[in-house]
């Protein structure tokens, strides 16, 4: 439950909103809430101590236990919601070690929309092949991936999800998403290692993972595609040219699915 992370006053105000998509908390500013009806501002300014209390609560009162995630700039809640963090970075030997003096938190709410990826499923299922979902941030890539996993899994295929940040398949009982009856999930494993691991051990027909982009990801994707297993993933980008320019192994993919700002499937194109 989202309200358990906030003080009773703020929690009561949050209960008035329908289908919250995002909650932004900024130092000495009013809390803003984006819901189905639009952007709203709560009459609750958050001082330094309030932000620390909320952050501590989001970390389950064990900030040290979330250190690895904090180094990536966000933490994932048990319900699958992602919390982006801004503050002062502590860098050591060129590596981000910690974020302290938190000044902003951005809570993005994870939701399940059953059959939202039906259009993608119908487009690729007949000749299923490597697929990448491309869009700018906050267009629903993870939500579409989750639903596509469910549809493919329920069609009889063995699907393995490599969920590096625990967003595609959170296990919290309260908000457990349906990923289909033939799905295996490897959580919180670095993507490149996780992909190789499941390829060797889980005998998948399809591997699903989120947000590829690094060179290590590209190498791992190449290994997967050569092995005969279908790869379905997502990429932060605005266009096909962007994808081709920034991801070296773009030509391994057959289908590219584009999402627009309205979180709808804009088009599905064949790359080869």
């Amino acid at each position: 439950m989202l309200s358990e992370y906030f003080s009773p006053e703020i929690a009561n105000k949050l209960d008035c909103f329908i289908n919250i998509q995002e909650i932004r908390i900024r130092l000495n500013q009013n809390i803003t809430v984006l819901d189905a009806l639009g952007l709203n501002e709560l009459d609750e300014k958050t001082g330094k101590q309030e932000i620390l209390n909320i952050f501590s609560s989001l970390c389950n009162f064990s900030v040290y236990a979330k250190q690895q995630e904090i180094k990536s700039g966000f933490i994932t809640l048990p319900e699958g919601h992602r919390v982006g963090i801004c503050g002062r970075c502590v860098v050591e030997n060129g590596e981000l070690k910690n974020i302290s003096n938190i000044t902003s938190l951005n809570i993005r709410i994870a939701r399940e929309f059953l059959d939202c990826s039906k259009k993608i499923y119908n487009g690729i299922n007949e000749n299923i092949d490597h697929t990448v979902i491309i869009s700018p941030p906050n267009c629903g890539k993870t939500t579409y991936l989750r639903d596509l996993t469910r549809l493919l899994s329920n069609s009889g295929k063995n699907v393995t999800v490599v969920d590096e940040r625990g967003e595609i398949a959170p296990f919290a009982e309260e908000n457990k998403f349906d990923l289909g009856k033939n799905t295996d999930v490897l959580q919180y494993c670095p993507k490149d290692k996780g992909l190789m691991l499941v390829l060797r051990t889980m005998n998948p027909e399809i591997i699903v993972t989120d947000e590829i982009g690094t060179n290590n990801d590209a190498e791992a994707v190449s290994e997967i595609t050569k092995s005969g297993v279908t790869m379905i993933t997502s990429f932060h980008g605005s266009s096909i040219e962007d994808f081709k320019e920034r991801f070296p192994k773009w030509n391994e993919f057959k289908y590219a699915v584009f999402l627009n700002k309205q979180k709808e499937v804009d088009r599905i194109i064949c790359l080869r």
Partner: protein
Amino acid sequence: MLKITGALFIIVATSMWGINVYRDLKLKAEITNGCIKAIFALKENIRFSMENLYQSIALCVKSSGRAKEIFECAIEQTEKGLNPSDALKYALESNKHIGNNTRNIMLYMCSQIGTTDAEGQILMLEKCMHDLENEQTEENEIIKTKGILYQKCGIVSGILIAIILI
């Protein structure tokens, strides 16, 4: 006969008083020792397992010796909805046997636990362990000097009062 019974009663009462004072001093020192062991377990858990505080406090129960009651009370409070830090504070404040200095050191630990990265936590816990070890040394000194004195005083004063009354 009545005088002798009364005298015996007085001797036993004052002796018990002396023994209880000695036991209290000993218990305080044992609780401090238990807190040191628990903090050590917490520190190692944070260093190697990075489990969240709820799970770490449960581990403390096993390692805490005579301070077990404090951590069991804290777990009870977390089950009622308090966060681990506040639960520990409540448990420390409601325990009647813990020494004041030990309580203050542990309360400081509660205010810091879970709020920083692992390195910060380990440094803070090491400082608390160091302070508790100093406190334990002082408590053991008090047991050696005053503890036995209280025991003997209890018996002797009982005998004296009994003699005067008889």
